[in-house]
């Protein structure tokens, strides 16, 4: 049923219909992926090569392809499975080319660039780290460390309702400021510990209040152990104040954030 192949001449019984692209790999390394592709029933994943670069694709099922859980999950799983076998450039969800001819033409135009990027990500993985504050613990720290906060807290606790409104706003402002300073220094400490172990870092700037850091690190496979050890350090450092969550190793989504030029006449 599934005929993944790297030989374009026998690339399976597909018509020249739309091809959904999961990612690119070097032709010498690309293999078929047993993981189920998009659609219901799931399309099988095939390899289409042109020159030194291959695309992992599946036939676009008839009708609209929905960005639903099933399809998002298929995209993620195919790429995860590929990434575990060979270097891969993950596509963003939802890229379809009209047919195999257009795909080959895209590989023709962008082959050199894709190959260069594949060399860059080879032997590397994305690790995604999120550090959360335990808000109550941080508020306790602030009350303990900041006398103005402690005083206003006592004052506003005994003043009910609207009477203490402006004092409460002031109290909250002081707390927010103190928390902002803590985040800055905690973020610097965390990144200072992890950054030296990574080839590149993509840090997300705007975060929910409870998140201290959310960043993706491109880490050499050989350094994954060191990175994990550093994460354990950070984690111990935050004991009682927050939690560290790490996802990965993942395909390097955050480090191939590139738009290839459109085809001529498109």
């Amino acid at each position, binding site marked *: 049923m599934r005929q993944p192949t790297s030989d374009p001449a026998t690339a399976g019984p597909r018509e020249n219909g739309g091809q959904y692209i999961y990612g690119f790999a070097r032709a010498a390394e690309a293999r078929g992926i047993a993981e189920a592709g998009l659609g219901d029933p799931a399309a099988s994943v095939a390899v289409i090569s042109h020159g030194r670069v291959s695309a992992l694709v599946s036939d676009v099922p008839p009708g609209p392809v929905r960005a639903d859980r099933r399809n998002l999950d298929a995209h993620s799983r195919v790429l995860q499975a590929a990434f575990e076998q060979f270097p891969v450039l993950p596509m963003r969800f*939802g890229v379809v080319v009209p047919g195999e001819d257009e795909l080959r033409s895209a590989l023709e135009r962008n082959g050199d660039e894709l190959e260069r990027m594949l060399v860059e990500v080879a032997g590397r993985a994305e690790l995604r780290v999120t550090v959360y504050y335990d808000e109550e613990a941080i508020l306790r720290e602030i*009350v303990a460390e900041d006398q103005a906060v402690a005083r206003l807290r006592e004052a506003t606790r005994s003043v009910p309702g609207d009477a203490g409104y402006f004092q409460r*706003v002031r109290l909250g402002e002081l707390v927010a400021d103190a928390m902002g300073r803590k985040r800055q220094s905690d973020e610097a400490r965390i990144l200072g510990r992890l950054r030296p172990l990574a080839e590149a870092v993509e840090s997300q700037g705007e975060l929910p209040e409870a998140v201290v850091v959310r960043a993706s690190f491109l880490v050499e496979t050989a350094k994954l152990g060191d990175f994990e050890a550093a994460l354990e350090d950070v984690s111990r450092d935050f004991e009682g104040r927050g939690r560290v*969550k790490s996802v990965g190793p993942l395909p390097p989504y955050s480090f191939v954030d590139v738009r290839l030029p459109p085809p001529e006449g498109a």
Partner: protein
Amino acid sequence: MAVETRRDGSGYLHRPQPSGLAEVVDLILDKGLVIDAYIRVSLVGIEVLTIDARIVIASVDTYLRFAEAVNRLDLAAQGKDLTDVVSDTQEGGTKRKVSGAIEGVKEKLPGGGDREEEREKETARA
């Protein structure tokens, strides 16, 4: 393949399975390679992604929430055993901590293909 591991001695380092959709859905939608002019998948369904905007810290509402939160603190309980704090935190889990912090500031993802790095997506309910 990395799987969920939780090491003894450091209960704070949490590693979900990397292929868990909730953990990577924003990467799949916001990052990764794009070939311009070839985004033809009908992104129907994206709108059911719930995304959570960041609360702007410098707002009176936020100040009042913080004021209420510090006033609620029972400082007498500060001396409670560290292990209690630890287990509280662990039981809290990501979902509760996160949703507590973003307090229902939710909006619909406005169609596919746009990019707003500021937003914080939490769950896909497709």
